[in-house]
């Protein structure tokens, strides 16, 4: 119980999520991402859900905080779908 730097995984572990296993609310076209030089999603996503794995874009919508930051910076439209999760799914803030 003290203050230290927390990893994205540790931070997301504190939140409550109801992951919609059937329907991802964010979908990428990774071939577009592969051609994107800037890859701003790597730094703006507060949950750090966009990472590079062996040079390829790696993304998991499960820990999404639904802020929309990735959507507004995605220049080459590698994000081909960005909606809110279906009703009741996704993050549920208890403090907010």
């Amino acid at each position, binding site marked *: 119980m003290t*203050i230290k730097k927390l990893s994205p995984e540790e931070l997301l572990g504190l*939140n409550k999520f109801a992951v919609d296993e059937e329907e991802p609310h964010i979908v990428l076209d990774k071939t577009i991402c592969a051609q994107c030089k800037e890859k701003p999603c790597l730094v703006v996503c507060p949950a750090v859900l966009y990472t590079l794995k062996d040079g390829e874009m790696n993304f998991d919508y499960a820990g999404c905080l639904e802020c929309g930051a990735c959507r507004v910076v995605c220049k080459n439209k590698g994000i081909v779908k960005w909606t809110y999760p279906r009703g009741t799914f996704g993050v549920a803030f208890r403090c907010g």
Partner: protein
Amino acid sequence: MSAEEKFDAIIIGAGPAGAACAYVLAKAGKSVVLVERGASAGNKNVTGGRLYTYALELVEPGLYQEAPLERKVVREQIMMLGQNGAVTVDYADYGFGEEIPQSYSVLRAPFDEWFAARAEAQGAMMVPGILVEELIEADGKIVGIKAGDDEIYATVVIAADGVNSFIAQKAGLRGDITAHTVGVGAKEVIELPEQVIEDRFNLQGGEGAARVLIGCSDGVLGGGFLYTNKKSISLGVVLNPEDLAGQGKKIHDILQNLKMHPAVYPLIKDGMTIEYGAHLVPEVGYQAMPKKLYRDGLVLVGDAAGMVVNSGTILRGIDLAIVSGVAAARAVLKNDGESNIGPAYVAELENLALIPTMKLYANFHELLSNRRMMSVYPNMANDMMKTLFTVDGKLPERMDKAMLKVLKKHVTFGQLIADGWRGVKAI
């Protein structure tokens, strides 16, 4: 449901704008549906943040006394962070807590849930767990909403669906939001005992402090905030996403580094993070608001209409959301015809001083986009203080020369004059 069985109003989003609107309409006897995508109201919402109490008074005098608010803010603080320290301006005004307190710190999950329930108690029909997918249009007017297989019809649809407002886009009132018009916010809620918070921030029972942090963003455009809640502290940053991307700096890292800053750490030490939230904030203010806030059968309120004011020291959003919700409700109550609601809404926004306030601060965004505000001036302020307070036994420099030297180290006279001029012009 057929078009004949229509409601007076459908409100999309049970945040403060939606709940305020639903409350006023339902209290006046209108049939209102309040649709919310979260399992309960407040589930999807994040704030810095604080609520200026006057706005709740517009909904119902005295309502704030029942609200699950955190601490009434009596200390306003501005903290300019340097490398190893900080210059903090601390203004205490205990009058801020008297009669109707000026503002409270607030956590949105409990607050929004309470507010929506109060609207429900007035007679609004609360429908949580439903994501509105489409608007229903007939003869160029918005007449209802579609969610899954359900269709609901109403005289007016009120879009209170927040900063990403897909509803406003679908209605053609705004384009896709762009990166330079928003800030991305990330926040930790850090639990600490009440007494510890009061001791660290010089507060007495129930009193709170609100702090703006400057110079905490590793040179990225933006800033930070700290609010004392009853048993927790909200600590976060709001940063320009384009600038983050341009500089290749992670918002996650910037917040984690801020926690460990030697002037911040003692305020939160021994605390425990209990939640991590993120949200976009409409950052530009008046100039980025949609040109038109309505069309036949639809009005935009709150964040969906870009209603946020950031003067650098004062940040307002929740109060403006509530005011716009009240304005929309009053417009609906005044007018029978769908076509009259929009213009009446704008007139109410003028009456309630919301649009004039947004206009007053219209140029502040440019001022706050000055990169030197983020790092140069906070560092300069710290250096000046260091010069004032350092004693090492050597002969001190003459104060005027020493200060001039500090100034020159950080800015040129040209920059100083330009920034000063911009500041004066913006005000």
